[in-house]
Every structure is written in C-alpha cells, then in structure tokens.
C-alpha cells in the first residue's frame, strides 16, 4: 500500500516545514499528481495540501506594470482575467490551449509549473526510466519515441516538458517566488526546469521543501502585448499535448524589431528559450528571411532522439509561423481555437 501522510498546513511556513521532509510533495489541484499516484509513477510519502493556504489565489498588479500571480490561481481564472489576457496575450492563449475546460478550471499556476513529463515510459512502471527510478535506464530510447525531445536531451533521458503555459512564461522572463526552509528566493522560469544530463530525476531547481508561492511577469514583458502569440500543433483540436509549440513576441518600432522573444514547447525537458534566435532579429526589419534565419538558429543544436526527426523541421516552421503571426499583431479577441494554426480569424471566446 502506498501509505502516505496527508497534511493540511495553515500557513506557508507550516507548509514548508512539513514538506522539507524527504519524500514530500505539495498537493494543489492534483490534476497531474493524483493521476501519477494512482498509476504508481509518483509515490510521495507525505502530501502537503496547499489548497487552503490563504493568499495564494490573487492576481496582483505591481506599480511598474508587472503582475504577481498567486500559485493557487486557477488556469482558467488567469486566462479569462481581462487585464492579464490583454497584457500577456500569449500566456492567456497558451493557457487556453492546454488540457480541457474542466482541467483548466481545476489546475493551478503553481501546479502547471510543476507538472511532470508525459513520456509513456515514465508512466509505465514496467519500463526503465531514469527520471522515475534513477539509474534504471531509459526505455524511451529505441522505443516509441515519435514525440520525444530533439533539444537538450541526453542518453539518460529524452522526455519533454508538456506545459503550454511555461513556454510563453519562459519567453517573457517570468520569475517564480519560492518559499523554502531557508527563506524566500526567486528563480527565473527558464532556470526552474532542468535538462536531464546525467541526473534526469532532478527535474527542477527547487530544493527540498521549497514551495512556489507566486509567479511574476515583469513590466518589460507587457511591452510585447501587441505582437505576441502562442502556437501549438497537436493531434486533436483540444485536450492534447503539443507535438511542438512556440511562443513568439516582438517589440516593433519604426518597422524594425527592437526586441524579440522566442521559446519552444514539446522539444526538450524544459521550455526551450531560443536566445540566439532572438538576438538575430534585433534591429532587423521583420522579413520572412529573418524569421527563417532565426528559426534555423533556434534549432541549430537539435538532433533526433528517435523517430522524431520531423519535429526539428516542424519546430523550425512553427517558429517562423509564430513570428509571422506575432508580427501581424495580437488578435483583438482570443481566437476561437486558441493557439491553433487553423484558427486564424479572431472569433468568439473559446468554449471547447
């Protein structure tokens, strides 16, 4: 029996103290963790339920125009917050392209940041998986690896990070606020998730007991609001993880690109920020050639980890498309099918 303690702390310090013990896991909405526990891929010895902690469910605007989002804010609530969606449209679009309406109503900001890979070999207890059982091997290598990583993978792990939300967050220099046994600190989302290297079990840079209490998007990220998109390719129109996805945001002044942000999803064990590609666009007039060049740079180090060479070309193309759409401008209203390349006309709010 997977016996575990269930603790419902009354305050953040209590939560941190409870979770500092080995084998603890924080429980938010549980849309990912409870499934993993039922399947046996996660077997925490102690669940620290943070759903009733006060003060984690607020969206707070900062004087400088940045925003601080509590870790327990629900995905749907954030996506449908008008000011948030208007200021960080690519983030809202990513949120609405993820999971299903029911899951978005339950899932939380902090939980989404902490979700685990969908690699089937991670979930299948009969398979070797270094991420689940360090040192056991990686059965995804040489297996059914069509959707696995093409960037930043190692022979120890070829899993991808499944989040849509984290992709534009990474692009926009979002930061998480963390409370831990040694106090409060901040971690850039880009530094939160780790590439596998030789220690794929180390999925994030959080230390034992550390709790994400809030997510911050800086004021500078708001400067991209007029030219920001998230685009996601998937194998059905809703309720499917990305084959590949991309967030692209541009700051255009006088016809030239002043700043660019590009991140890819579904290609690596973390949301993949393409800084070289971003830099390549600065000061150039926006053009197809520039976008193609940027896309090539973004995927320059990509190599297939299995039957997935197509993802490299697909990722290049989606970078080009996301940049093109960003250049065209953020839609006035959320596309009827958020993040879908097939939903080009702004439509009614997404209901699917």
């Amino acid at each position, binding site marked *: 029996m997977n016996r575990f303690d269930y603790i419902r702390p009354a305050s953040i310090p209590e939560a941190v103290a409870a979770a500092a013990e080995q084998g603890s896991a924080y429980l938010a909405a549980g849309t990912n963790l409870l499934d993993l526990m039922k399947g046996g891929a996660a077997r925490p010895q102690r669940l620290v339920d943070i759903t009733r902690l006060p003060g984690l469910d607020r969206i707070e605007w900062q004087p400088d125009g940045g925003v601080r989002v509590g870790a327990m804010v629900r995905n749907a609530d954030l996506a449908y917050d008008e000011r948030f969606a208007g200021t960080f449209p690519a983030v809202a679009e990513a949120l609405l392209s993820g999971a299903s309406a029911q899951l978005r109503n339950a899932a939380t900001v902090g939980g989404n940041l902490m979700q685990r890979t969908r690699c089937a070999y991670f979930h299948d207890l009969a398979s070797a998986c270094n991420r689940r059982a360090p040192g056991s091997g990686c059965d995804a290598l040489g297996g059914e690896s069509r959707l696995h990583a093409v960037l930043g993978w190692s022979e120890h792990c070829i899993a991808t990070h499944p989040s849509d939300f984290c992709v534009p967050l990474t692009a926009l220099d979002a930061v998480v606020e963390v409370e831990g046994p040694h106090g409060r600190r901040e971690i850039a989302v880009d530094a939160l998730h780790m590439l596998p290297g030789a220690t794929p079990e180390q999925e994030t840079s959080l230390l034992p007991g550390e709790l994400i209490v809030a997510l911050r998007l800086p004021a500078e990220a708001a400067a991209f609001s007029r030219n920001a998109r998230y685009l996601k390719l998937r194998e059905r129109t*809703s309720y499917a993880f990305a084959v590949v996805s991309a967030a692209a945001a541009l700051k255009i002044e006088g016809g030239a690109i002043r700043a660019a942000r590009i991140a890819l999803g579904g290609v690596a064990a973390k949301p993949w920020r393409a800084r070289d590609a971003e830099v390549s666009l600065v000061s150039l007039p926006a053009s197809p050639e520039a976008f193609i060049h940027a896309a090539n740079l973004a995927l320059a180090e990509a190599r297939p980890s299995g039957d997935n060479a*197509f993802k490299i070309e697909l990722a290049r193309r989606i970078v080009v498309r996301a940049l093109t759409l960003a250049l065209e401008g953020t839609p006035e209203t959320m596309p009827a099918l958020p993040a879908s390349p097939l939903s*080009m006309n702004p439509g009614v709010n997404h209901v*699917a």
Partner: protein
Amino acid sequence: MLHETVLRQHARHGSNAGQPLTRRDGVLKVTGRATYAADNHPEGMLYAVTAVSRIARGRVTALDVDAARAHPGVVEVITPANRPPLAHDPDEKMPPFGFRVEVLQDDSVRYVNQPIALVVAETLEAATEGAALLNPQYEAESARTGPHNGEHFAPPAIGVGAPPRTAHGDVEAGLAAAARVTEAEYVTPPQYHNAMEPHAVVAQWDGDRLTLDMPNQALALSCASYAAYFGIPVENVVIRSPFLGGGFGSKAILNGPHILAIVAARMLNRPVKLALTRTQMYGPVGHRGRTWQKLRIGTDSDGRLTALHHHALCATSSFDEFIEPAANASLPLYASPAILSEHEALRLDIGTPGPMRAPGEASGSAALEVAMDEAAEACGMDPLAFRQANYAETEPGTGRPFSSKALRECYTEGAKRFGWSRRPLAPRTMRDENGLLVGWGMGTAVFHCPHFPAQARATLRADGSALVETAGADMGQGAWTALAQIAAEALGLEPDQVELRSGISTLPDGGIAGGSGHTASAGLALHNAGDDAIARLAEIAVADPASPLFGAGNIGVVARNGRLHRRDDEGRSESYSDILARADRSEVIGTAKAARDPAVAEAHAMFSHGAVFAEVKVDPDLGQVRVSRLVGAFAAGRIINPRLVRSQYFGGMIWGLSFALQEEAITDRRTGRIMNADLAEYHVPVNADVPSLDAILVPEDDLYVNPLGVKGVGEIGITGTVGAIANAVWHATGVRVRRFPIRIEDLLVN
C-alpha cells in the same frame, strides 16, 4: 413468404414507425438515474480486481500471494494454483462466436494486460492493493510485435467463419489486360475498445443458479456460453443487461475477467463485482486488429475496372484467430470482371482481436476507398465519376440482384448537398480565405445486412395498453425506442401505450445486437408478435355476436388507434379493451419467432449503402489537419426513427474521422506493451474535432431484406468516411498517405 409479406403490409396502419421520437430512456440517462449493470450492489457483495501481466509473452514464475492475502480486507486470491476447474476447456473455442479465453488455466502469458490472478476483497481499494502486492515475477520471452517477427499463416477462416479467399474471374488476366494498374499498400493500426462504460459484471450464485448483471450484446448466446463454462443448464443462467454504455462488438463476446468473477462468486458463495479499468480494456476484450492491405486495381482506357485484387495481412493473437475480413470489403461494391479477396494472418503477442464497429468493412473500406481514389487519379477521372462508372448493378462476381440499392441516389444527393461538382480535379489547388489548403474527397459506404433469429411476445392488456418483450440490448443508440415504435405500429397503438421490456435473458430471445442487425431482427420478432396478438384479439371479436366485428372473420380486420376495424367498413369498430372486457379476458398474448427466409436471402445480395463526402483544411507548412465538413448520404431500407438513425450515422462518421486522423494503440516494438492505454493519450475526437455533420437519409424500399424492409445503420457510417477524409487530405496537399492515422509528419512536404 414474400407474398405474405406484401399482404401483411395491408394490415399495418400505425403511424409510429418513421417518427423522429427521442430516446425513451433519455431523461433517465441525462439525469444520472439510469442504473447500469455495475451500479448493482447486492447484499454481501465482494469486489474483484484482476492482476494483469506487464509482459507480452512468457511465464509468471512467482506471485506473492501471501502478501496479497495478508492485506486487510482481502478475502481470496485466485491463481492458476487454486482456480476451480471449469466445465469447458478455455483453450477450446466455443462456437459460434466464442473465443479462447485466459482464465488462469496455466502460468503462461500471451499478451500484455492478460489476467494473471484475481484478488477478491471486501472493498475495491483492498482488492486493488491486493493485486498490486502480488508483485509478479516473469520469465519473459521476446515479444512478437510485427510482420518482421510474427508468424505468418494461412487462416482457415476469417471474421466469424467466412472463407479466407474469394475469387471471381481471373485477376491476373484482368491486370494484364488493363490500360493502367495502380498498386499500393495500406496500413491500419490496432484500435482498442473504449466504450464509455468499461466491461463490468456483478455475479451472484444461488445454488447452481447464476445471475449476472452485465452489459451484454448477445444475451441468449452468452447464457449458453456461461452455462457451458460452469456446467449448469442454460436455463439456470440469467443475464440482466439494463443499459449499455456502448458495446461496439466487444460486449457480445465472453472474456476471461468476467468468467473469473463468476468463478470467484461461486468459490466464495458471495456476490462478486468486477469492473475493468480503462487500461485493462487494452487486452482481454478484443480490439480492431492491425492490417497491412495490398490493393491492385486494373482499369481500361475508359476507366472501368478490369481487375480488383485485395490482399489483407491481418494480425491475430498467438493462440486464437480473429482475422479482420478486410479484403472482403472489395467484394460487393464495384463492378469488375475479376475480383480476388484474400487474407493472410500474422500471429503477434497481443490479445485476440475481435469485432469492433464495422469489423472488416471499416479497415477494408479505408484501404479500398483510397485505392479507388488513386485509380481514379491514374485515369484522370473525378473520383465520384470513376465510382459511378464502376457501379455494380448486380452483386459483382455472383450476379445476384441486390435486394435494394439506392447507392446511385446516395451519390447524387450527397454530391449535391456537398457541392461536389465544383471540385477541381487536380490536388493542392484550393485554398480558403486564410491560405489554408482545402481538399475534397469522397468514399463509398457499404455494410452487409445480417439478420439474426429472434423471438418476442406481445401482450394486449385489458386497459388497452400493451406489453412487448424481447431480450435485446440498447447500447445507447436508442434501440429500445425504435423497437417500441415497431411494436406499437404492429399493435395499432401509440408508443407511449406500449411498455417494452428488454435486456433480461429470461425474455424471449431477441437475438444479437450486432452486425447492425438488431432493429431488423428483434424488430421483426416484435412486429410479428404484435400481429399475432392482434390476430388473437380479432378471433375473439369476430366470434362474439355482441361485437360490431362479429362475422368479419373472412373479410378481416385492421388494427388502428387501439381499435379493430372491419376491413370493408371502417365505421364498424371496437376498442381492444371492450373486446377483452366482454370476453372476460385480462389480456391476450401474441408470440413470434422470426428469421430471414433462407431462400430469399440466397437469391439476393443485401447491403446498406452510402456515399460520404469530406472537406478538410490543412495548414500548408505545419501539416495540421482539420475536417471542416462531412456529408453522408445513406440508403438503409426503411427508417424507423430518423432522429436516432441520423445520430447513428453521425457516430459512425465521427469514428471514421477518428480512424483517419487519431486512433492508434502505440505498441512498443520491443516489449509489445501498449504505451497509450488511457483516454488522455489514446486519442478519439473531442467536440472541437467534429465538424459540421450532415447525414442524408436516402429513401429506399426493400421488399426482400425482411418483411419490415429495415436494413442496418449502426456501422455503415465508418465505412466510406475514412477513405473520404484521406482522399480529401490528398486533394488538399497532393500527398497520398497510406498509413492510418494520418499524422502531421506525413504532410510536411515542400
């Protein structure tokens, strides 16, 4: 028989059949008050959970039974070491539709998710934990997962007993004489049953009497099979199948977990419930087997077929045979002087495949309709014109007349509604206002019309209402609504005056709810039972001097609106309740056994037909596909309830979309494990995938298929649709994808 049929129709005046009534059980279902089999919790019930294999082939060498037994709440652990004997050898097939089953007969493992033990406990949680504690150890052998390592063999039979090879004419000569030959291989994936309601059973023994609450598509057949397994008389088995949350063929056939639950109930002398988890559905309850199909089509200079050769390699298990009769999809559809359908089989370490909505036809049609599209392309012909040029006026090969065939009208009506005539011949020539590639494709739909023997009883009651009974199954599609309409029509009553009892094996045998034949089979029995009840009522009336119908015996009476009328004088009539009251009868009972007349069946080819037209939009750079329109036109004889029939067509077409673009069990090539055995990763369409759907009900009168003129509508919608979508994808992109489902990477060209 035929003449009798025609005459009988004169006595049928009900207006109920043909009405678009809503489901009788609709409110119960949408309010959550419909009681499904697994909702039953008899006093003292135990929960059973199967422990399942995680290897595909080998032996279980150890199970920690002690640990499982020691877990609080666990009552019994059943393994090959203590499983009580069965009266029927599970390694022997049980005809007609029985398969070998895995019921702990030995320690061998034949596929992933095979039951290797059963844990029975006071709670579901304890049983689940007990199963987890078994910690099986294996001696694994290498899994056979594909044509490269599976054993190829020539199957003695395909489907449920059809010959593996059917030849008409000389295909090689036809190909040699052809102006053009198109040849290609098409691959279809394994698809697994994912009915909303997983397989479940609540088993109770009372001495040697067995009661089973379970969703079931074939009550009488299942009773006989369970009786044989447990060595009891068939009349000792009662199956109650109140509703099915989807059946699709998999709930027509016995499976190992169910039998084990019954074993446990007998062993422990307590009721036992077993419900499979979603993941456990991927193994012991049948699936649509993989196929590799090669088609060669010869055409002459006018675009007429000179030969059609369809070869299917079909996966089956290592220990039993269900061979998708895929190549037979090429037999009934297109006129060709030479047609050859042949099947080869491949043994893999998988659960035995089985029927899944349109078995054979779905996979076969997917390949055939793409191949026909390729042949049309080679001939430079419009795909619809090409099919019309090869229209079969009589059954190809045999020359038998079709009992009815309004396929031409389906082509015309569907094409008109879709706007097909505006289709450019060349691919990759249409774009929408956003620059997306647009493609139009079509396919022909066809499904055979089986008819199962069935029985029914109709009771006219003193209050003028009726009770009709037949042991049938409503899989959610509204069968019991349609059946009540048929009965009401025969009885001259409104449907709300007719109480239908069904779903219990103690009622007259309603046949099998499969093969799209249930409405016709059970419906005919109900109709005839209603006729019989009316005839008995008329006998009372015409012999009663006090009745206005006295002496009308030779002239005959007509039943309508709860009254019998003299045939020659409609003004002389009497209500059913008055007739019964004066005769001092509380009821009059009619019964019927109905079957298809074998002579009529022999003389005719019987099929439902249709034409499906698809529009897809494809992102030219990113390969993302979305079906934007589907129009199907179907002719399936007489339509009892157009609302429910349209819904059946929609369901079939949506499954066709699923087949074309989404569904596939991803099987690890090394271990044989299915890596996406859940509804998050095994994709079926969501609402946002389902496009504008249009199903046209093309009128068709059939005097031969059965006296009701009813064909079947349950499965035909898949056929045609898969090919139509694949052909539309080609028309949009110029890329011919021959492996299903079509994936994004298939379309990353240029």
